[in-house]
């Protein structure tokens, strides 16, 4: 009781809360663990689509899964060299 009170008072975090948070995060991360072929396939597909509209630097692009405390995101980064003109 007293221990609990002291913990609350000093703002010490319950380790069980941290365990839950870490677990929730790592389970999402586990499921997002993509193997290399999936990632390369995805990259080729994305490049194909974007190339229809932009001229991009294919050597400088990067594709990765970013994990944050709260969310996971797929990040695709590429320099645009030129905007392609749509032909009527």
């Amino acid at each position, binding site marked *: 009781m007293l*221990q*609990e009170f002291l*913990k609350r008072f000093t703002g010490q975090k*319950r*380790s*069980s*809360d941290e*365990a*839950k948070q*870490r*677990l*929730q995060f*790592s*389970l999402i991360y*586990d499921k997002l663990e993509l193997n290399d072929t999936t990632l390369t396939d995805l990259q080729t597909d994305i490049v194909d689509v974007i190339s229809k509209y932009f001229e991009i630097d294919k050597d400088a692009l990067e594709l990765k899964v970013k994990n944050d405390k709260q969310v996971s995101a797929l990040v695709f980064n590429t320099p645009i060299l030129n905007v392609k003109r749509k032909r009527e």
Partner: protein
Amino acid sequence: MEGKVIVVTSGKGGVGKTTATSSIGAALALEGKRVAIVDMDIGLRNLDVVMGLENRIVFNIVDVVQGKCKVDQAAIRDRRIDNLFLIPASQSDNKDVLTPAGVERMAKVLRQKFDYVIMDSPAGIERGFENSVVSANEAVVICTPDVSAVRDADRVIGLLYARSLEPKLIVNRIEPARVERGEMLSYKDVLDILSIELVGLVPMDEKVLISSNTGTPLVLQNDSTAGQSFRRIAKRLNGETIPIEVPNLKPSVWTKLGKTFGLK
């Protein structure tokens, strides 16, 4: 009517699979069902000692699957609980000696002879796990409230879903005092993370080790909180609807004193 095959699994080792299997099996037999417990951990057999039947092994599961003996010859009858049988694992063979097809053949025979067949899966997700789940009609996942057990349970749940099994969860070794102090995940936390149906909560109980020391069934001990939890779990698996009891703190000395003096 054909019997049901229930697989007890966890992914991680040492979370209480063997205790759970033997207790659930024994409790189902106490409910009047004919039960076979099958030790699927080839090379590392344990159920026989936990159940106190180690001196009576003649044939084992590998002999059954390879056709060297009949199911009835390998199944050891428990002398304390009627209708309870154990098919022990082989201690000398390699895990890969059994194939899912072979196990499936054996399970067909077992379903004819028993109401319930409980498969004690080995730890891990390799061949031994495959063999244990191949003929399962139902799955029970057991997990303790710690990060590694929960993570492994999640992985196993995924694999069971992939086989169209909808596993039910047992949270084992709950220590209410530590949950209260915030030192241990609560069963609600575990349930939040795994989000599957709960079939029972089992408190940490010193009697578990003691009963395995002597090879006596935990469920026969009325003073074992874990044993009583397993009896309720067996009832639920047998189709009864009974509320899930949450392990709580033992009453303090003062409340006990109060009770004896009739204050409460």
